[in-house]
């Protein structure tokens, strides 16, 4: 799946082969290949620059492990740095001390918010929770229908007020969840560009009104350099608490994962891996690092050494 990327890294590592020490000069070429590979994987250019510096420092400061070649050691350093940037472990979804836990979904048009609302609701119910979904997108044609249809599919209720003020819909939706004794309330919102100030202000009002415990940025895993701008703007305005990366069932390398985490400091909590409502998995940084680098096998080799 990640042929081009692993080939490139392979190439970089080959250049270290046969040498018994990582040095400033022999690492140069390898770092260039890593940079190339990460850019090819859509990691943001600025993020790549920072990352390469971290890898350089880590590599030069590393002790030589007996029995491990420098090339293998280098792979492990790159991988470990990637995991470090993306967070060391899976971070679970918030749980409020007094229910309902309020989750606000936000993101660009078509990123997968509405679908992910239903996936998350189903996921929570499988954990024995009682979720409610709220139809807060009054702009996209048939957005309310879409969420209701998904709700019917999974037998989870959807609160809607038709096309009225999204802030009011959110307020009443949370109130309804409280009255119905729900554990979670998931607010769907319309897709918006971060430069659409009016639409961003609307989200801020929703936030101020319902004070969500979790604000999740939903990002299409195929996104390019824009991931960093997008994350920065949404984070500055809303203070996101995490992200969900969708459409990872495709063949994209998903370098956005690195950018999102690096820019916001917030964890990616779930990944979307299909169009069906069951297709949601927790996010594991180490698996994502391996995916970006396409190097599962080599790693286990180094681990054994």
């Amino acid at each position, binding site marked *: 799946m990640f042929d081009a990327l692993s080939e490139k890294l392979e190439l970089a590592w080959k250049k270290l082969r046969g040498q018994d020490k990582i040095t400033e000069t022999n690492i140069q070429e390898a770092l260039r290949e890593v940079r190339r590979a990460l850019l090819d994987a859509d990691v943001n250019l600025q993020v790549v620059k920072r990352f390469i510096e971290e890898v350089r420092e880590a590599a030069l400061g590393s002790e030589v492990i007996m029995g491990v070649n420098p090339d293998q050691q280098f792979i492990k350093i790159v991988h470990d740095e990637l995991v470090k940037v993306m967070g060391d472990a899976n971070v679970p979804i918030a749980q409020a001390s007094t229910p309902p836990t309020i989750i606000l979904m936000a993101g660009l*048009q078509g990123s997968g918010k509405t679908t992910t609302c239903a996936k998350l609701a189903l996921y929570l119910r499988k954990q024995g929770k009682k979720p409610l979904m709220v139809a807060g997108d009054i702009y996209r044609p048939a957005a309310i229908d879409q969420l209701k249809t998904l709700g019917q599919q999974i037998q989870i209720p959807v609160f809607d007020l038709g096309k009225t003020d999204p802030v009011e819909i959110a307020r009443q939706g949370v109130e309804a969840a409280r009255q119905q004794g729900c554990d979670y309330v998931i607010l769907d919102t319309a897709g918006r560009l971060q430069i659409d100030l009016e639409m961003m202000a609307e989200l801020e009002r929703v936030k101020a009104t319902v004070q969500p415990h979790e604000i999740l940025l939903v990002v299409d895993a195929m996104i390019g*350099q824009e991931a960093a701008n997008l994350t920065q703007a949404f984070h500055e305005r809303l203070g996101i608490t995490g992200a969900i990366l969708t459409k990872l069932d495709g063949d994209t390398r998903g370098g956005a994962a690195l950018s999102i985490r690096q820019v916001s400091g917030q964890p990616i909590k779930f990944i979307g891996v299909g169009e069906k409502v069951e297709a949601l998995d927790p996010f594991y940084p180490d698996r994502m690092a391996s995916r970006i680098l396409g190097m599962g096998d080599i790693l286990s080799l180094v681990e054994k050494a």
Partner: protein
Amino acid sequence: GKTRLNLINQLKALVGRGPIDQDAIEEIEMVLLQADVGIDATERIIQALQKRMREEVLPPEEAVKYLKQQMRQMLTIGDPTFAPQRDRLNVWLIVGVNGAGKTTTIGKIAHVAQGSGYKCLIAAADTFRAAAVEQLKVWGERAGVEVIANPGQNTDPAAVVFDAVMAAQARGTELLLVDTAGRLQNKKNLMEELAKIRRIIDKKAPEATVEALLVLDATQGQNGLRQAQVFAEAAKLSGVILTKLDSTAKGGIALAITQQMHLPIRFIGAGEGLEDLRPFSSYEFVEALLSEY
């Protein structure tokens, strides 16, 4: 972040009035990479520029002028005018990955075509996504164009296309727009389903002018090229529509696609409204790509 500057000023800050140097080249490279042009296409553009620099010294204005020329050339494929042919059936098959903007774009095209006096019809061949037909019907109403749909859920999309082609032929329709479900290009069965739709159109409407247009979201990164490659095979693509150019993304992957696939870009989408469709202009696209960053 970094202060936003126009490329020429940025280069002048580096080299003054003198010829551009390696630092200036790196600056240009950075702009292209940040616009999602991708490493390969970026290197090709830079190499051409360097070749030119060896022939003659280039001050910033000249370098940027040459750069823009190069890029416009990469984006110009075939006849730039693009419209359905009058008095005969045109079938435009609209395809792409999930959420790219297919359904919305069909609404916009229908609106323009209807306004230009074409007899139009829309086929709702996304029978999979929740409320996809309802969404398309809203767009049909906005444009004043009828939508042919199958009332059942999860029906065969090829059957809908078949019905729509029959209806179009019976009514003397000039433009039949076919909406399809979003699909990721690595899903073999879904791509095969698309190939089947294309075969039905070719077989049932041999008299028609068929266009298969890939809807590409401008915020997409390097995967966009892969999308174009695989969709080209399944749907026999004849062009690309670039959506969401009202975002801050530059859609640079389009350069790689036109260069490697020789597919023209036909329209751009720049908003969620009925009027937000424009013919593609390589001039505007390149200016926007290099404008500020």
